[in-house]
């Protein structure tokens, strides 16, 4: 018998220890029974005759199991079990209570206090060993579960870091996000457009947990990289769709709503595929001005179909708020099993007309309704106020046109022509920006170049290659999928870049020529240059390009334009 109070008793055999058992009892008889049953089976025994000594052991030794002899200790059983649980903390150490059968009430208290198993005295060693063996398996499972969760937590940190690198955070955007598991299948991203505008994406992958989160990274990659390169939302959506179609199993897809907010906060382009309604709320009147329903199938299901990525254009004002959420919010249930629901959400928005930032009211209502219940799906709610902060031009971007002393006195020029189907399928703006950056060594601000090119390209499409409707609706960007191929087939667009010297410093000459019928550029340019006339510009885009460039000149019938862009800010 190893009643060696305070020292670890060895089991006397050359076998690996199955664990250390702390027995708390001042009865030498019980200790002897326990010892007989367990040291034989490969366990080591520590014996504490009172609670004080037991706590000393727990703080100074590694313990795997605890046996509490209810009849022979110096404090009440349930109190001791509760204190032991506090001492053992996060480590799972099974507590087994040795009880006498008439102590049922005490036993019940011990179980509620956190003991894991019990055995009635008198017991035989086989029964005791059986109990410990079954708890051994529970320990293994708990360890396995814990290491899985730990692994997920680490993986989540890596993923969160990777995602935060691919998205900008705004203090103004209020975000509620609750995930069902460690990983969330919901994804919220923002990216700054080269022209100062903003792209926002809220997505919801099928299911939840790791399998749902795994698609987030490629989506974030495409979203941030393509936005930065100057691509429009329709192109980004097409790319994400193709990527997810090849990446995800058939039963998985990504519902998403994506927004482009223009730099002047005058309009938003919205696409909704499989998400709940996107709300535009006037924060002054408190009313929901627009509800944008899902009109498309989610991404990743089908290969691209033309016209699938058409955007809805909504006029904005600076008092507007955009409210986005995933169905986890409305599908969340209260204790009675009733869903939070769209009606309750809309009612909450209606009832809080005076609340400028509706976010807190919604979160409050949601938490009151179903905050006590763990969500069955991932929940995301985002409130985006259309304040100038969102699209404010970041000065650091403008000044990063580093002044490099030019050693290219020999100069260079670059040229591309789009015709036929390439005119339909290729967005030349990112390509031209890319080439200009490579050739000019970043002397020209990307932001400036991108803004000017976008304007000139859009104008060429509107008045030249003619793909717009007759009313000349300027708003909906350059959406290639809308092009009428019969017209496009005979058309061409030539874009040239040339390094030149302008007023003694290096500059870039951009030239665009198209096959279209042109437009009354003389009148336009007069309006722009003659500001005192007080005429409202009908084409603000060209006026912007005029202001950004050193010189802007339309030639002929208006189908050829040349702009000089200097490296100076």
């Amino acid at each position, binding site marked *: 018998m190893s009643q060696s109070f305070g020292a670890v008793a060895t089991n006397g055999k050359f076998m690996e220890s199955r664990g250390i058992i702390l027995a708390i009892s001042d009865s030498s008889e019980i200790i002897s029974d326990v010892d007989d049953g367990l040291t034989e089976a490969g366990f080591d025994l520590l014996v504490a005759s009172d609670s004080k000594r037991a706590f000393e052991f727990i703080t100074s030794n590694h313990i795997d199991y605890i046996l509490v002899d209810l009849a022979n200790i110096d404090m009440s059983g349930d109190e001791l079990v509760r204190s032991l649980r506090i001492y053992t903390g996060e480590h799972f150490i099974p507590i087994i209570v040795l009880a006498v059968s008439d102590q049922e009430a005490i036993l019940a208290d011990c179980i509620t206090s956190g003991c894991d198993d019990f055995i009635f005295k008198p017991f035989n060693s086989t029964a005791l060993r059986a109990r410990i063996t079954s708890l051994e398996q529970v320990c293994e499972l708990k360890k396995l579960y814990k290491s899985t969760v730990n692994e997920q937590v680490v993986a989540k940190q890596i993923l969160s870091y990777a995602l935060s690198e691919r998205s900008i955070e705004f203090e103004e955007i209020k975000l509620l996000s609750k995930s069902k598991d460690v990983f969330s299948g919901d994804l919220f991203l923002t990216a700054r457009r080269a022209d100062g505008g903003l792209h926002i994406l809220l997505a*919801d992958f*099928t*299911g939840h947990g790791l399998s749902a989160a795994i698609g987030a990274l490629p989506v974030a990659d495409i979203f941030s990289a393509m936005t930065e390169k100057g691509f429009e939302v329709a192109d980004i959506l097409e790319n994400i769709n193709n990527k997810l179609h090849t990446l995800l199993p*058939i*039963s*998985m*897809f990504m*519902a998403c709503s994506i927004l482009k907010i223009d730099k002047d906060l005058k309009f938003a382009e919205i696409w909704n*595929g*499989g*998400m*709940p309604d996107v709300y535009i709320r006037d924060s002054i009147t408190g009313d929901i001005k627009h509800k944008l*329903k*899902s*009109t*498309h*199938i*989610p991404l990743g*299901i*089908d290969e691209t179909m033309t016209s699938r990525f058409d955007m809805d254009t909504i006029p904005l004002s600076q008092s507007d708020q955009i409210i986005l959420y995933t*169905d986890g919010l409305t*599908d969340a249930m209260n204790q*009675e*099993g009733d869903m939070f629901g769209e009606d309750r959400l809309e009612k909450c928005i209606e009832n809080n007309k005076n609340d400028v930032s509706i976010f807190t009211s919604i979160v409050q209502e949601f938490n009151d309704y179903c905050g006590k219940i763990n969500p069955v*799906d991932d929940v995301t709610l985002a409130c985006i106020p259309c304040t100038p902060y969102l699209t404010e031009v970041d000065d650091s971007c403008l000044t990063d046109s580093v002044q490099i002393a030019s050693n290219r006195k020999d100069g260079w020029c670059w040229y591309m022509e789009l015709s036929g189907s390439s005119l339909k399928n290729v967005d030349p703006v990112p390509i031209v920006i890319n080439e200009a950056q490579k050739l000019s060594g970043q002397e020209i601000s990307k932001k400036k170049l991108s803004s000017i090119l976008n304007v000139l390209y859009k104008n060429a499409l509107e008045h030249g290659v003619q793909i717009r409707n007759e009313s000349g609706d300027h708003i909906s960007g350059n959406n290639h999928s809308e092009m009428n191929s019969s017209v496009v087939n005979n058309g061409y667009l030539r874009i040239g870049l040339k390094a030149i010297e302008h007023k003694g410093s290096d500059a870039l000459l951009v030239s665009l020529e198209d096959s279209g019928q042109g437009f009354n550029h003389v009148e336009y340019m007069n309006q722009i240059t003659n500001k005192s006339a007080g005429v409202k510009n009908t084409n603000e885009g060209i006026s912007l390009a005029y202001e950004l460039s050193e010189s802007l000149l339309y030639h002929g019938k208006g189908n050829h334009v040349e702009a000089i862009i200097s490296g100076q800010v």
Partner: protein
Amino acid sequence: MFWRQIMSVSQEMSSDGKKIHINISGRFDYKVSQEFRDTYRQVPGQEGVAYYVNLSDASYMDSSALGMLLLLREHAKCRGGTVFIERPSEQVDSILKVANFEQLFTINYSSSVSIDTEAGMNAGVGAGA
């Protein structure tokens, strides 16, 4: 207390094996994915089968249920078959509408084909039907 709905998936096949009716009642979610798959995978492979998924008794449907429909669609597509969604209940229809699944499936809102099953030919696959 939660009132737990009994969910069930059952299947009927026409005598010529060209029509398969799949009936889902209760919550149509990830818990029935195995049973749902069994309704079309555990029948002898035939070309050009018409699958009728009856959702008139389904009370709810989650995104994994939409995924199950996509799997069935793929299964049918590979074998020259078609999938019809039959009489979706109001709750389920709103979910199908958000996902715009009418662009991928034919959805029938009124009772259509009746099945010419012979007694004994019914192959029931169910979870508590």
